């Protein structure tokens, strides 16, 4: 409680309090551990993946995971319809999903944050225009926009980053604008103005550091939605194209082998769930931490 009251009275210092292990309950601790493990696996993919994710081997097609009959040594999670190692593909798929979701989140944050900052500081016509765009974006289901962009520009890694980058900008714009409008009323901003600070200096030096905390929360909550969106599009065959594996496309392609080789689908599906659960739990926890109203309850 004290940390937040302190930050509002001392602008400029890092306002986002990084919660420590001891604050967390056991669910959050598990989520944190799972998240760290997933990040490590994604980063270290080339070192820990037992096989090349795209290496095919027709004599070891559709082998089940360890513990089942016909299990083939080394292929812990089994193999897919082309004899590729599912564990390795999951690891590389996780890496790509992570990279795409991260790129998408950062781009969305930059677009939305900039527009929100602009709207909040400039006011007037600029603000009306930005907020009209935000309202419009909220009113149109994003899946439609994603399908349209992917159909028109083709499915490639670049286009996927673009689609994911557009996703969620309106949330950042809304939050940043609201925070900025609130902050510009604060005494320390008035003081800076009175001291002759330029609008740019006020924006970047006095306001931006104070918007970090709500943005971090939104970023985390948004991240799990982006993972879901990316997996869904890849699942439908509209995302990154084969043979490159993402978790969603593994489920999408493995679907054809569901009756005979369900492990092709189950392994990546489980990884997706681990990832979205962990991110969701952490995001919610951060929101509770950062929200003063909730904490005083």
């Amino acid at each position, binding site marked *: 409680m004290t940390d937040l009251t302190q930050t509002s009275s001392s602008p400029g210092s890092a306002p986002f309090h990084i919660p420590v292990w001891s604050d967390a309950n056991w669910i959050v601790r598990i989520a944190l551990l799972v998240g760290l493990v997933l990040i490590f696996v994604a980063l270290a993919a080339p070192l820990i993946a037992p096989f090349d994710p795209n290496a095919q081997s027709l004599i070891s097609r559709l082998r089940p995971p360890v513990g089942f009959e016909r299990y083939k040594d080394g292929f812990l999670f089994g193999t897919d319809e082309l004899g590729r190692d599912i564990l390795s593909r999951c690891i590389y798929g996780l890496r790509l999903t992570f990279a795409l979701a991260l790129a998408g989140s950062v781009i969305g944050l930059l677009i939305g944050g900039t527009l929100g900052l602009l709207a909040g500081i400039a006011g007037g016509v600029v603000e009306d225009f930005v907020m*009209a765009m935000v*309202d*419009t974006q909220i*009113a*149109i*289901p*994003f*899946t*439609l*926009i994603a*399908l*349209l*962009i*992917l*159909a*028109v*520009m083709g499915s490639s890694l670049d286009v996927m980053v673009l689609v994911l980058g557009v996703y969620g900008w309106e949330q950042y714009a809304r939050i940043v604008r609201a925070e900025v409008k609130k902050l510009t009323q604060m005494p320390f901003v008035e003081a800076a103005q009175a001291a002759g600070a330029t609008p740019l200096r006020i924006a970047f030096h006095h306001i931006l550091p104070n918007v970090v905390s709500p943005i971090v929360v939104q970023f985390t909550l948004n991240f*799990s939605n982006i993972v*879901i969106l990316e*997996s*869904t599009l890849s*699942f*439908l*065959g*509209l995302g990154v194209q084969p043979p490159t594996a993402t978790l*969603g496309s593994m*489920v*999408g392609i493995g*679907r054809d082998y*569901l*009756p005979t080789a*369900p492990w092709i*689908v*189950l392994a990546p*599906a489980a990884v*997706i*769930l681990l990832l*979205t*659960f962990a*991110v*969701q*739990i952490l995001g*919610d926890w951060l929101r509770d931490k950062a929200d003063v109203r909730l904490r005083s309850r």
Partner: protein
Amino acid sequence: MLIYVLRALVKMAVTLLVIVTLVFFATRLSGNPVDFVLGDGISREDRELLIAYYGLDATIGSQYWRYLVSVFSGEFGLSFLERRPVSQIVFERAWPSLKLLLSAISFTLIVSVPLGILAAIYRTSIIGSVVMVIAFLGYAVPAFIIGILLVLIFGYTLNWLPVIGDGSALHFIMPTLAISGMLVAAITRFTRNAMLDVLSQDYMRTARAKGLPEWVVILKHGLRNASITLLSVIGLQIAGLAASGSVVVEAIFAWPGIGDLLVRSAILRDYPVLQFAVLSVAIVVIVINAAVDIAYAYADPRIRLAKG
């Protein structure tokens, strides 16, 4: 009230214009659709003829104008692949989609409203926590994973339910569950929050003091007052959530609806169909949102009786 309604209508019109424009520029900026669809096996004269036929040789401005005129007069052209009017193709698929959506929304309300009320009443006990954890995690499960797991369990392993199409009542079960997953999670949370706001009001204590049975207090005094907020939130959220959920779920179960059509025309790049399907879904969602907005204003005396 009048001003409020007018503002909602203007907002709706602006949104519609933006989506119409977006669809136009998205499909035109990607190059010449004739080249893409017909490929190489076409003579130069035929190509010129088709470009002139579709009006693709005009300036972008006049193309846009003609497009706007055709949109507002209900002319949407022929499918590249099926050679039929796109409006016909989309309308054929509207009814199956609608049936599935109605089924999913009814199921969602039947499950999530009681769960939300339970979670609000027993918010400090284990029941409340369990409901909220389920609702919370449910929000992080992609619809296609629910769909695939259902198919694996009830379709292939147990062999209880049909996997493809919309032939019988049994066909509705799995797609309904798959679409509802995220909706149930969202609406359980909304219901709980709306009920929590109401439960602490003074009139609830008064109702109990009068000696009314607890269920009457909760349902008649609690739920009824929470329902206005609840309905507006549901109205605003459900159209968008359901639209995106049904796209992937219809594709999984080969449901002959608009969602399946959207995915197929996007993969095959049948632009006229994609364009019209995107527009129709967007228009429906936007109109529903505006209607809910106005209905909410009407239900709320503070806005209804305000000046103007």
